[in-house]
């Protein structure tokens, strides 16, 4: 450490807009654990995996001895690996259905809980609870046993005289069961929606009702536009989240993506290639394609957002 001359911290004078370097040093030092972490845990492994994606790294041989194979892994992925395209299809299906439904559920419940009534805090807590349990393995295990052939869900259906199905072990239903689990965990976007709803000025509703607008028109013309930045935020976040779904698929299928690949999410396929087949070079290439794809999807979302996201002007206030 440089032996900085003692200085009175209380009377800090600085040239406006041009902080002195010496003053920044402690700041960076305080940041250093995080910077080190960023480098060691995120940046270096990422760059390494980019390198590995051009090799035949097989986990067991030291990566310094892995052979450079150029674009082979990428080429194989797009031209010679049906399981790659299959997992893309499964993942896109999952995200396209689960994400909008999850957001709809979150918004719906947020609207209900936005009213003032006795015990609303408890309800908010209860509805948020599933998200706290979130991606945990335990929830997925409970889910599997509930939706099994002889599980609670089928017993409940039987009470109403409906014959259930093997929800987790039939390829027709397994992915839907996973979607349901994802939708059920709508707590996080719901809380964000609630916060957004609180921001909508009450005067707008008052003015609208004076003008004779009903509940639906108020929702459509006040709530939705005012909430659109929050909807957009949730949409981006949940889309990324949806594409990354791994834990529940892993648990439900015992790590196989089965029955017959019906739950072979992209990340699960990547995992199997890397850690089960020991084809880590290929898995790294898959990870990079994934990163680029999610980046592109996010860009597209931002582009379309221009047309429907309404930001209240910054001067208004």
């Amino acid at each position, binding site marked *: *450490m440089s032996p900085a001359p003692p200085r009175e911290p209380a009377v800090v004078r600085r040239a406006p807009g041009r902080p002195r370097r010496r003053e920044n040093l*402690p700041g960076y030092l305080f940041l250093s654990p995080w910077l080190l972490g960023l480098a060691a845990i995120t940046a270096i492994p990422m760059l390494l995996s980019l390198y590995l994606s051009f090799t035949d790294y097989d986990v*067991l041989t030291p*990566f310094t001895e892995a052979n450079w194979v150029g674009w082979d892994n990428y080429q194989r992925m797009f031209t010679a690996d049906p399981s790659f395209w299959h997992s893309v299809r499964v993942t896109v299906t999952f995200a396209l259905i689960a994400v909008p439904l999850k957001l709809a559920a979150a918004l719906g419940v947020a609207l209900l809980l936005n009213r003032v009534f006795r015990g609303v805090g408890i309800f908010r807590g209860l509805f948020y609870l599933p998200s706290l349990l979130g991606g945990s393995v335990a929830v997925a295990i409970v889910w599997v046993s509930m939706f099994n052939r002889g599980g609670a869900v089928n017993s409940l259906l039987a009470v109403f005289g409906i014959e259930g199905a093997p929800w987790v072990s*039939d390829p027709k239903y397994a992915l839907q069961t996973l979607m349901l689990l994802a939708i059920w965990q709508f707590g996080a976007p719901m809380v964000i929606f609630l916060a957004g709803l609180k921001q909508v000025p009450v005067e707008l509703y008052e003015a609208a009702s004076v003008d004779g607008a009903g509940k639906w028109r108020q929702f459509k013309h006040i709530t939705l536009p005012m909430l659109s930045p929050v909807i957009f935020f949730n949409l981006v976040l949940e889309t990324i989240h949806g594409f990354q779904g791994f834990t529940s698929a892993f648990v439900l*299928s015992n*790590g196989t993506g089965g029955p017959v690949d019906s739950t072979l999410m992209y990340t699960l396929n990547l995992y199997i290639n890397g850690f*089960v087949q020991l084809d880590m070079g290929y898995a790294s290439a898959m990870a990079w394609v994934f990163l680029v794809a999610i980046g592109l999807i996010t860009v597209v979302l931002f582009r379309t957002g221009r047309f429907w996201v309404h930001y209240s002007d910054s001067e208004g206030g």
Partner: protein
Amino acid sequence: MTGHISRRKLLAAAVAVPVLMGTAAACGDDEGGDDGNVELSVFWWGAEARAALTEKALALYTSKHPTVTFKKTWQANQGYFDKLATLTAGGNPPDLFQIDDNYIAEYASRNVTLDLTPYKDDGRLDVSKFPESLWKYGEVDGKLAGLAFGENTQGLVFNKSLLDKFQLPAPTTGMTWEQHIAWAVTVSKTAKVPGTMDPSGSYQAFWVWLRQQGKDLYNGKELGFTAQDVTAWFELWKGARDKGATPPADVIHEGNVTDISKQLVVTGKAATSWVWANQMPELKKNTKDELGVVAFPGDPSAQWARASMYFSVFRGSKHKDTAVDVANFLANDPEAGKILGTDRGLPSNLDVRKVVADSVTDPAMKQSIAVEAELVPKFGPAPAVPLPGHSKVKTELVKAAEEAQYGRQTPAQAAEAYVTAAKSAIGQG
């Protein structure tokens, strides 16, 4: 003022702590060698029963060699090899670890495992009491990559209590496949429990059946079967499903993916399961019903004495000699043998096997020993050790079989897809 000082102190501490911790960790690594004490890391998969037995056997070793202690790690089969691979990638695999046919060729061909041949040659690793075919199972490309730890064979396990209750006959060794299926149909009708798990996705059943057709799973570096063979195999079981001999597809799927403790014969969802004979005690522990075990259908000479698993030593281990000595002790010491019983298969050392057979009290272990003793004279020659890619050949078979079971593909389509996938798994052009 004080705030100023404490802030600097804090900074210093923030820098110092990780440095100090790093030093401490570095010291910890070297400690072992200096005073002659060795801590050997041992890693295996299995359930609690195996853990208890193994820990007891290792404790026995420590009592004889007080300078050697063990860092024991064990876990369920699922995820075991992921973890082993990760440890290896980190340059820190266990000194001594359990491995099986799925991965031994992969690890050996990448030089992770120590070649045990010199130890075998100078007697530090004694395989003189092993059946020759058994220890040779651990050879990959001329190197002894693992010490065969236990011998077993395919076993068809049936629920004896259930059959007795409905006065149904038990299956017998030597039944044909058609007879087995016909028997299963009767069981389904009478006992209202599906007679047999559908083993079309079970590679050990498929393998035995192939050998009975004069084929094999592998032939040199290639597949030993064609799409026609797979089609015939899938057709056989499609017929069985259509006749009601098996549970529905989703229950078969459960049987395919769950571990040994939830096999259908244990959960009561089928009257028979297709397993390895040494797994009897683990099955028995999970059910109140009495279980029996016979050979797979067809000519039993298609079955063979297989190394159920191996112990391998990490090539880069600092304590290679000790690790080999421990493996040698576990395999050849009669006392250790008595502790371990038949949990990993029949003991490889024939003398130990006899001691165990005479002293064993666990009825399920007794049964494993009895059925293998009955089958040993009927065994045919063992096939070669599976090729690298074997684990994928297995999982692809499950996938193809399930495509046919769910009726999403015809047996011929599923067979065609399977052969393509299996060829690519073993790198056959």
